[in-house]
């Protein structure tokens, strides 16, 4: 019951917050739809390039709508002592954070689905061949990114630094998954496997498999490493939250 309550509160705060929507919804959505649409028109092999680009931009949705958003919201609420106030109620710490994470996952997955449909209509990007694989990694990826966002708040001294300290990940994620063009080709090759271990890259790899040709068997093989990567990041996030999460501003 209480989890639904925190979920409802987070959702209400998110959607009634008209000011936040351009950043948390419109920008990632615009990039995820606009960039592939641009590719479709300017590239020779337009549809393939658009598909490549679209799958890459999912990393931007994940790091913008899930990671950045939850980090900014939680640090601000921590600074305004709203988390403290929530803790005066019967809610457990877990319920407060889970409600926030669950809400973030809903929004992120919704945006991923909307953008998949939109690029299908606007840029002829096909729908995923294996929608289950797409869906599973959309949900798991959003959940891991949101949890990492919760963990990252511990490193942020003040709310106003939340966005500047989180933006690099947004760019790193976009860079690593090809959402920012082909800078990757310019980077040294030893860096590629490192960038592939980012949680956003793991999701993008699995989703790429769900778009490409393959069978159930090949999909499972393709999903194995990304699943492992996400599991490791989830573990890291949960342990850091346990160890370092702060409910109130630092007092030192």
């Amino acid at each position, binding site marked *: *019951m*209480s989890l*639904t*309550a*925190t979920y*409802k*509160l987070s959702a*209400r*705060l998110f959607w*009634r*917050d008209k000011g936040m929507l351009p950043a948390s919804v419109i920008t990632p959505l615009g990039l995820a739809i606009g960039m592939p649409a641009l590719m479709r028109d300017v590239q020779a092999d337009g549809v393939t390039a658009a598909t490549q680009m679209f799958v890459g931009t999912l990393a931007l949705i994940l790091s913008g709508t899930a990671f950045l958003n939850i980090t900014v919201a939680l640090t601000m*609420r921590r*600074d*305004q*002592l*709203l988390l*403290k*106030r*929530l*803790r*005066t*109620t*019967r*809610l*457990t710490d877990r319920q407060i954070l889970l409600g926030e994470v669950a809400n973030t996952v809903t929004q992120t997955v919704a945006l991923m689905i909307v953008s998949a449909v939109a690029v299908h209509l606007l840029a002829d990007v096909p729908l995923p061949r294996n929608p289950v694989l797409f869906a599973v990694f959309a949900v798991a990826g959003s959940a891991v990114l949101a949890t990492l966002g919760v963990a990252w708040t511990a490193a942020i*001294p*003040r709310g*106003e630094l939340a966005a500047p300290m989180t933006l690099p990940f947004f760019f790193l994620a976009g860079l690593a998954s090809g959402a920012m063009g082909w800078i990757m080709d310019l980077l040294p090759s030893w860096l590629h496997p490192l960038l592939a271990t980012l949680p956003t890259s793991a999701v993008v790899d699995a989703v790429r498999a769900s778009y490409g040709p393959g069978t159930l068997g090949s999909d499972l093989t393709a999903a194995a490493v990304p699943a492992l990567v996400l599991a490791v990041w989830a573990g890291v996030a949960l342990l850091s939250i346990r160890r370092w999460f702060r409910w*109130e*501003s*630092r*007092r*030192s």
Partner: protein
Amino acid sequence: MAAIQVNHLSKSYGGFQAVNDISFEVEAGTVFALLGRNGAGKTTTMELLTGFQKPDAGSVRVLGLDPFKDRSRVRGNVGIMVQEAGFFPDLTAGQTVGIWRDFTPAARPASEALELAGLTAKAKTKVRQLSGGEKRRLDLALALLGEPDVLFLDEPTTGMDPEARRNIWKVVRDLAAGGTTVLLTTHYLEEAQQLATNLAIMDRGEIVLGGDMAETLAARVGQVSFELPSVSHAGELPLPATVRGRLAVVKAADPDLAAQTLLGWASERGLRLRGLEVRTASLEDLFLELARNDEMSQTNAPARSDHGTRSDRPARSGGAGA
């Protein structure tokens, strides 16, 4: 049975001993006031009692449970009005109460909670438009939602006008009459005297005085003061007095009795005691007395004279420009 039990509780931040080995109990259904100057350790004590902080040493039991370890179980029967906690500025007072009802099992109807806190007229007002005192009342409405057995009020009437303050007092008294245990901190001595049956006065993290309100006050001296008749001198008075200028002051445990004695003495001699004033002990006197003792101990031990600049807690870092 005691609703709140505190045993040898200590807490320090960095090198600063905020709470130092305090013990007290609050009987169920009574109102207990925690008094002290800024930096005395009241808020830290409150944070320990409400389970926001973990004690360094000693124990706290609220309704028999450890508020830190069993936080969610304790929360079910406890209402907390914290001194510093935010609201969502863009929700209205009514919406805030509505959302909080979702968090609270068997919550009062929203209208009832708003009514109790005197906020019915502001139900549709956004929190950011409420005054400081109105925010305190919204805080109270949230604390009362779950019909708690124990209510923690950290400076409940700060920022309120006198009328609002009296209304809150009435609510607290009614709740206590209904069996709710209340622990409150306050700067206002009158508030403590009006509401509380028991008290503890804290200074530098320690309880310097505590117990039953009436007994505590009775044990302190009252005083009778008057203008010493020009024909008399202090030695003639039937009771020991100190004289400053022409003003004689007689200290007595029962100032009414002392006044009668003095008046009797004066009428036997056909004298009048001009400007006669009888004062029973008040918390105010108690505070002044404690402060005076404090000054004296300070002149003896100047090394401890830094307490005036301390705050309840070390200042939070950050807060742009704050």
